[in-house]
């Protein structure tokens, strides 16, 4: 599934520069250790974390995009780093649970 299609269907806000990507599955965790060991390339990564380290981890595991849930405010330095490394950061006021349910409803499956 294309990232822009998911952004439209879930009404996500893009905080960083946007480019089209293929999305293959979803990974949910707030621990970088989990992401580094469990996330697959092309995954959408759902988290409440906003630290600059999410850019490092998302880039390394080749995540399609990071969705920051619960309306958490993402610091400017995280967004600047994401733009430097072409990591896409999206935001939603919905909870991680609600987002997961909506992603399943539009046909995305875990991993």
């Amino acid at each position: 599934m294309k990232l822009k299609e998911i952004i439209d269907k879930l009404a996500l806000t893009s905080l960083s520069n946007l480019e089209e990507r293929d999305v293959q599955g979803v990974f949910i965790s707030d621990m970088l250790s989990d992401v580094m060991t469990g996330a697959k390339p092309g995954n959408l990564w759902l988290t409440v974390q906003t630290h600059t380290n999410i850019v490092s981890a998302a880039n390394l595991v080749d995540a399609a995009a990071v969705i920051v849930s619960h309306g958490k405010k993402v610091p400017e330095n995280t967004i600047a780093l994401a733009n430097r490394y072409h990591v896409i950061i999206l935001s939603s006021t919905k909870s991680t649970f609600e987002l997961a349910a909506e992603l399943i409803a539009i046909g995305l499956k875990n991993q």
Partner: protein
Amino acid sequence: MPKTSCRHTWEMINIHYGFIVTEKCYTCEKISTYYSFEDRPPLDEYREGEHFWNVMESAQSFRFDFKCRACGQIVPFDELMGLMMCTGCDEECQVEKLQKKHAAERTWIYVAFGFLPTDEHRQLSREKISILEDFFNQRRKSSTSRIKIVSQELVKKYATCFGEVIKDVDMLSLKPSEGK
């Protein structure tokens, strides 16, 4: 490591969660890091010979080894403390220079860190850094970008470097969600 004709395809095995503990001796200011597999990282100060160690930071992280899916070769990675992405904090740093050189082709530079002090711990060999790089690039099927991993020797000054090792520390947000 023995030479082989196998074109290795690496997978992570033996994944163990634990803590990277950073401590400092308050008499000589020496900094030391080590990996703890305990459920809770140690907090107490202690004396070791002439050193009086105080814990500066404990961060959750993980350790692993690599295994080749084709030939079964296992390569332990217990020298690796963590990986750090360059944030471009110092234009004179070799890592930043490399990042600028490769940015247009979307090759991203990460620094592989070993444990401190570097002269007391075995550090990652070039061969192992190459394996680490191969692992992350072999999985990048959905992207046109590449990962390049370099040795910590290229960091100009570790003490003033703003790059952050990927680990679970300082991750708590003190701000409530917007509008709540």
